[in-house]
């Protein structure tokens, strides 16, 4: 799968049906339709938000929550994953609890966090961090567990300090795994960010989207959906790129 992607991935020709569909929609759609407003009306639908200076701050809020949440999740996931993976007993002791927590759907945490922590930005962060941590933690744990013993003995032979062992051996060896986890976690974090915003209506793109739906501004809903799609696409593109670039550089170590 991976090799195929490097050979150029999916052909752009494949966008044809989507373009045709949107074109057809544009031509036959009724601008006043409450369900399927044609694409040209989407921009007009967004206009009130742009004029009211609401769209950019909303995107900013969403981006901030997403980035902060993903960063915290990366650090927590990498550190805890490495520690849990390093010791068999700790792994055995914690895994049932971790498995159960992981099985809780993020969606069900939203109302809980809203009730316990209130409708705040911290609440948003907690809800984003928790589910985004799992993929990173799990890949990191597995990578640490399967790390070649030679790699761990080398610094001991060389008499490296604990600090150098971490920075020079562990970090480079585990980075690809962490990035793989981040690649899975990033789209998830974006989805959860939007989800919290839609459900709790606390700032951000999701809140605007929810409000537009509640007031039946269908053209605006589709416009916002498109923006969310572009965000999703960007996030995917960036993480995939970063992951391939780094794992190519590190090919020797793993």
């Amino acid at each position: 799968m991976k090799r195929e992607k490097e050979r150029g991935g999916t052909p752009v020709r494949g966008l044809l049906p989507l373009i045709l569909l949107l074109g057809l929609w544009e031509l036959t759609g009724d601008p006043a339709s409450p369900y399927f407003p044609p694409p040209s009306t989407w921009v007009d639908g967004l206009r009130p938000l742009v004029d009211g200076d609401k769209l950019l701050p909303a995107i900013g809020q969403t981006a901030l929550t997403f980035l902060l949440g993903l960063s915290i999740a990366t650090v927590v996931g990498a550190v805890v994953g490495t520690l849990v993976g390093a010791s068999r007993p700790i792994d055995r002791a914690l895994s049932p609890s971790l498995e159960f927590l992981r099985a809780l759907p993020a969606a069900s945490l939203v109302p809980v966090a809203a009730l316990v922590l209130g409708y705040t930005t911290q609440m948003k962060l907690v809800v984003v961090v928790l589910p985004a941590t799992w993929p990173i933690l799990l890949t990191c744990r597995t990578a640490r567990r399967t790390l070649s013993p030679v790699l761990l003995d080398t610094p001991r032979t060389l008499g490296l300090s604990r600090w150098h062992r971490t920075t020079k051996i562990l970090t480079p060896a585990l980075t690809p795994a962490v990035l793989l986890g981040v690649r899975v976690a990033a789209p998830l974090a974006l989805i959860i960010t939007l989800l919290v915003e839609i459900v709790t209506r606390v700032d951000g793109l999701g809140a605007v989207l929810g409000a537009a739906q509640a007031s039946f501004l269908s053209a605006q809903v589709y416009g916002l959906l498109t923006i969310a799609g572009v965000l999703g696409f960007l996030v995917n593109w960036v993480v995939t790129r970063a992951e391939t670039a780094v794992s190519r550089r590190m090919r020797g170590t793993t």
Partner: protein
Amino acid sequence: MARRVNLLGAAVFVLALVLWELLVRTSVLDFTYLPAPTAVGEGLGELLANGELLGALGHTLFAALSGWALAGLVGVAAGSVLGLVRPVWTYSMASLEALRALPIVAFVPVAVLLFGFSVQTEIMVAFYAALWPIMLNTISGMRTEPRMLESGAVLRLSKAAVLWKIRLPGATAMIVVGLRLGLSVSLVLTLVAEMVGNPAGLGFLLVEKGQALQPGQMFAAVFVIGVTGIVLNGLVMGAARLAFRGQMASSGEAA
């Protein structure tokens, strides 16, 4: 396959619950609406006693499973066509990838707009969410190893026989993975649709108990949701193991 019971793990789990109980009782963890585990147990009892829980669970399961089953049919069929017929793949895969980039939750308000506050909204959302993993896994599952196809040619199998005896069995493990992923996302998205759209089922129960300031019952609902997810996943795995014994083992999915 006999697995040893992880006593240590279970002990830690129980210990964590006890610690939580103590911290709440002693007000070290001082949130107004954070219930202790015993309060959650009581909440569970209350929800069971007044029948709310089973009704909501039934509704959510119905919506999630209908959407998932529909997605299974459409996803496996469409995925097979996309995986087997090269031109179709060339001329539509990029569109599908563009659509897939749309965060699924952002689609929920659109579904509410289109289908109103109804169970259709839930089923549509569950369907849409589950469709992607099932379809994409089917597509990559259909990429059979050339050597297998060559042996089909050597044995002079007909096209139908190649599809039935080589391609489908080869794709089974991938399809099952897709179905599992699909089931868990369809459950999650059904809950979201219930929170945002249709006021019914477990998703709404959560929101409702939150607004009624019943944290015990609310956490109980979360617990039930978590257990439901685990049970459903286990059922799919068990069913797949029973139905496709050899095919699952061949790709290491059995582990």
